[in-house]
């Protein structure tokens, strides 16, 4: 070709080239035409003008030509790109299938890392990040009073009323309180969660009814017909969607007309079945009757800090000059967004899990990187051949990247599958304390997150080998068959990767070891009672049927007697608080017949049967008996710690104590004489020390039986479940309107540590995952190194080296690197272990046992992972290995 014009169809370059090509072509035409005219006898100048005239608008023609050709080039380029991509993908698939082991390891590695992260991120996204499902939910705040110790306490009605009238920063402010109570009128007697609330609750949430209406201010007026609103869930499940006209329920003894069904998304406070109006006229005026929680919607232009400052000032003004006990008066408010109030407690645990999942992903990526690198190295010869045959460098890099992308896509697919499984497990295991866990689903943003992780991994680690392999010194690789200088450099990178992988895995292993240890500690806590073979009945009588507390007490006495008669029951009794089941009141009590002599203690009503059923040991004196009826002398039993705290070194028997404000006898100055001392019981939680507690016979002081009542039953046979039918029948016989809520105490115990178990299981799972990944990574690297050094080993063996020596050498070198990783991991744990301390119980974050165990487990796994490929590699015949390549 004489003229290297811009025109060979494929090699044309977009842009100025096209314009030049067009101009040149048109110029050629004009020149030829001019010459033709000159040959016909035209004057040259005239001829040029004539040629131009005959040609027409050259500008226009040139523009049209350019447009057409540029469009064509673009189309061709697209086609060309697709062709190339198709080709790359086909080639990539073929090479991946040729090395299924590598493809599988890579896919699973990525899949597990991405899966764990996607699942945990789904939960974090839904629980922590997603706004609450209410209109402008950021403006909804939750508040309580601040107590003298800086903690929170429920809001006194008198304060709430003044807040509502005087606070300016809110569009609406509502008080609410809820508890589980008997609801009659549904298909069966049941215990529903009932929330008493002011009418403004609906405006705070901008809630709308699904049908009927919500409660309004008039419903709260004295003399108004009692009305209520039910949740959509309750209406459908328990009321079979009965039409609202003439729908009545008996809620806590009051006949309530149901006027509306709340829209489905409305669930506040969580789990509420029925909302009923607060009787605003029948509330204590004291500023120390702390009974309510408050939610509010911030007004336009108001902010949480501003509103909180206003409320603090207002509250201090309100309590000033109050003659209520200053120890129980508010010192301000505690205000937070409702979102924070709902998700706050689970944040720490979820972030820990997210961190752990992140570490797993890091291990997975490191693993993938070393696998890609090893594979790249094995292929360096093939690629060098391709490069020397003229494949452009960019093309080879692109090829490697295509392979990595295919791997990433496959990994993402596996990861999403894994995520679905993990999420399923999370939901099944997740404690109720994680709000909104049930709603969590893998959604678009989370999938995008997963794909993002996969692509990032590929870009970073897929390019690393690509850069290395597409260097211009491909000839060197060809000559050396992939060994030599390049191999040394690679070995350096590997060491770094293995060290990183091992140290990350160690951190996870130690973390999960610590959590397991602390969980064991938790379960071994001395709680002061024996939950084995004990079942509890939570009972709630209708105040309409049993208006007085004496009638309550009488009913419980009869019921307990009946229960004791059931065959297989070895002990049964009444108690007002059951360990780990919510309600455990404490109060300021008076001592020693002196109303000015105070003590603080838990207040529990019980009978002797309860102590027997729960195996709470009697330390001194006696338990309650038939002498301690309503007409007998008032008596009490105190816990050991109560006796030690208030009568140190003295005999508590014969001392006297009141029930404080918990019952009415304090007003008469009526003291109860201490007749016995029992062992300490942890009522609040496994991990919380027992509090000094005073027990009174419920027959003598029945008033709290209306609020909280349990019957505890111990089975003689050891099979508490077998008692349930008989218990239900007995209950049915005594009062068919009392819903049976029967829970084995051990189940309550288990549920109380569900958050810790959840953290432990997940962290443990992640640690195992990291361990497996790290081992797989080491296995891969050693396999590669063995393969690379087959020749060297062959020589050594041929020269009389013993197999075991050669093997030891390979394993030893790997373990040196592993050891370094372990050391760095240990240092990391020692430096950063404090993050864990909030999750630990009775274990230091640097617990040497956990550290040692993790080091041993990881060390052994690493040694195995190194030894297996080394053993396999040295088993071959030296002559064969020497002839390799």
């Amino acid at each position, binding site marked *: *070709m*004489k*003229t290297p*014009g*811009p*025109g*060979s*169809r494929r090699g044309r370059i977009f842009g100025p080239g096209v314009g030049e*090509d*067009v101009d*040149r*072509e*048109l110029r*050629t*035409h004009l*020149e*030829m*035409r001019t010459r*033709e*005219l000159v040959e*016909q*006898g*035209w004057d040259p100048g005239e001829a040029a003008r*004539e040629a131009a005239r*005959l*040609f*027409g*608008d*050259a500008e*226009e*023609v040139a523009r*049209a*030509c350019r447009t*057409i*050709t540029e*469009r*064509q080039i673009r*189309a061709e380029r697209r086609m060309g790109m697709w062709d190339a991509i198709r080709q790359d993908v086909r080639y990539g698939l073929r090479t991946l299938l040729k090395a299924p082991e590598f493809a599988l390891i890579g896919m699973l590695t990525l899949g597990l890392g991405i899966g764990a992260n996607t699942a945990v991120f789904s939960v974090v996204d839904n629980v922590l990040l997603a706004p609450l499902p209410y209109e402008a939910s950021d403006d909804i705040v939750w508040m309580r009073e601040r107590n003298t110790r800086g903690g929170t306490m429920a809001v006194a009605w008198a304060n709430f009323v003044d807040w509502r009238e005087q606070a300016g920063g809110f569009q609406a402010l509502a008080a609410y309180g809820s508890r589980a109570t008997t609801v009659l009128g549904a298909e069966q007697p049941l215990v529903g969660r009932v929330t008493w609330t002011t009418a403004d609750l609906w405006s705070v949430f901008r809630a709308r009814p699904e049908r009927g209406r919500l409660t309004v201010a008039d419903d709260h007026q004295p003399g108004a017909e009692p009305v209520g609103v039910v949740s959509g869930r309750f209406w459908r499940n328990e009321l079979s969607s009965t039409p609202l006209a003439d729908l009545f329920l008996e809620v806590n003894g009051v006949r309530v007309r149901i006027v509306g069904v709340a829209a489905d998304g409305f669930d506040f406070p969580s789990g509420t079945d029925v909302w009923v109006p607060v009787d605003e006229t029948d509330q204590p005026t004291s500023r120390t009757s702390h009974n309510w929680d408050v939610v509010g919607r911030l007004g336009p232009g108001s902010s949480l800090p501003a509103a909180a400052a206003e409320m603090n000032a207002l509250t201090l003004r309100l309590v000033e000059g109050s003659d209520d006990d200053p120890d129980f008066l508010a010192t301000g408010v505690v205000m937070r967004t409702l979102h924070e109030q709902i998700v706050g407690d689970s944040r720490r645990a979820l972030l820990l899990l997210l961190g752990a999942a992140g570490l797993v992903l890091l291990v997975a990526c490191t693993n993938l990187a070393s696998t890609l690198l090893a594979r790249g190295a094995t292929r360096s010869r093939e690629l060098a051949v391709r490069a020397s045959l003229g494949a452009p460098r960019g093309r080879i890099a692109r090829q490697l990247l295509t392979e990595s992308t295919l791997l990433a896509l496959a990994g993402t697919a596996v990861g999403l599958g894994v995520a679905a499984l993990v999420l399923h497990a999370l939901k099944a295991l997740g404690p109720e304390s994680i709000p909104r866990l049930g709603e969590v689903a893998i959604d678009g943003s989370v999938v995008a997150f997963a794909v993002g992780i996969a692509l990032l991994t590929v870009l970073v680690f897929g390019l690393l080998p690509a850069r290395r392999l597409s260097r211009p010194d491909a000839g060197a690789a060809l000559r050396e068959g992939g060994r030599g200088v390049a191999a040394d450099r690679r070995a350096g990178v590997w060491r770094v990767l293995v060290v990183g992988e091992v140290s990350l895995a160690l951190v996870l292993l130690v973390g999960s070891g610590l959590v397991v240890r602390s969980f064991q500690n938790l379960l071994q806590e001395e709680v002061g009672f024996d939950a084995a073979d004990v079942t509890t009945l939570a009972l709630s009588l209708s105040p309409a049927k049993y208006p007085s507390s004496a009638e309550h007490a009488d009913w419980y006495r009869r019921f307990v007697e009946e229960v004791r008669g059931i065959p297989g029951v070895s002990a049964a009794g009444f108690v007002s608080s059951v360990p780990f089941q919510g309600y455990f009141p404490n109060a300021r009590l008076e001592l020693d017949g002196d109303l000015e002599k105070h003590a603080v203690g838990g207040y529990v009503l019980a009978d002797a049967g309860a102590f027997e059923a729960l195996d709470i040991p009697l330390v001194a004196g006696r338990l309650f008996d038939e002498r301690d009826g309503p007409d007998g002398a008032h008596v009490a039993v105190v816990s050991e710690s109560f006796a030690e705290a208030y009568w140190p070194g003295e005999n508590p028997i014969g001392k006297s104590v009141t029930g404080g404000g918990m019952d009415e006898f304090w007003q008469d100055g009526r003291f109860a004489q201490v007749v016995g001392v029992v062992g300490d019981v942890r009522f609040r939680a496994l991990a919380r020390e027992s509090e000094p507690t005073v027990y009174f016979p419920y027959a003598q002081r029945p008033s709290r039986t209306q609020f909280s009542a349990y019957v505890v039953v111990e089975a003689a046979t050891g099979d508490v479940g077998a008692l349930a039918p008989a218990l239900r029948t007995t209950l049915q016989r005594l009062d068919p309107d009392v819903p049976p809520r029967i829970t084995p105490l051990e189940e309550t115990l288990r549920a109380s540590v569900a958050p810790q178990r959840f953290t432990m299981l997940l962290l443990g799972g992640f640690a195992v995952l990291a361990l497996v990944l790290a081992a797989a990574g080491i296995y891969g690297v050693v396999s590669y190194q063995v393969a690379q050094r087959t020749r060297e080993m062959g020589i050594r063996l041929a020269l009389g080296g013993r197999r075991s020596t050669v093997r030891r050498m390979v394993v030893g070198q790997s373990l040196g690197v592993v050891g370094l990783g372990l050391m760095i991991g240990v240092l990391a744990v020692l430096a950063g272990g404090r993050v864990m301390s909030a999750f630990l119980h009775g274990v230091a974050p640097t617990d040497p046992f956990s550290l040692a165990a993790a080091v041993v487990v990881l060390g052994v796994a690493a040694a195995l992972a190194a030894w297996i490929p080394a053993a396999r590699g040295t088993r071959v015949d030296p002559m064969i290995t020497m002839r390799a390549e």
Partner: protein
Amino acid sequence: MARVARAAVGRGPDLKLFGIAVRMHKSQMGISAREKPTMPDSSMELLKGTLDILILKTLSAGALHGYGISRYLREATDDTFQVQEGALYPALRRLEARGLLESRWDSTDTGRDAKFYTLTKDGEAELERGIQSWKSYVAAMAQVLGGARA
């Protein structure tokens, strides 16, 4: 590249354009533009789409550059069609974009550079189709017009 240049202007034997024999008037090449107006009264608008077929037909005899095609069409049709010479070039590029033509820069016999177009396989097939449809078009027209006269 002499092979390409051989097909250049005014050399070919008589061509059959759309089945109509077109006499190559060598003599006409000598007629000056002054004596012969460039747009004779007998000139007419080129029917839409026929330029493409004319180009394909012209190139079926061998590679040719734009000027050559233009000159050949002028002479072969006795300047019947009233076409601005520049209109040829977008048409060439459109045909090329459709894959009916290929182009490359080459030297002419006189040693200057020009962009030569050749027919592709697709181009040949397209030409065949074009001729067929033109023939049936002409036949249909003739039948109607001839019948009207009768």
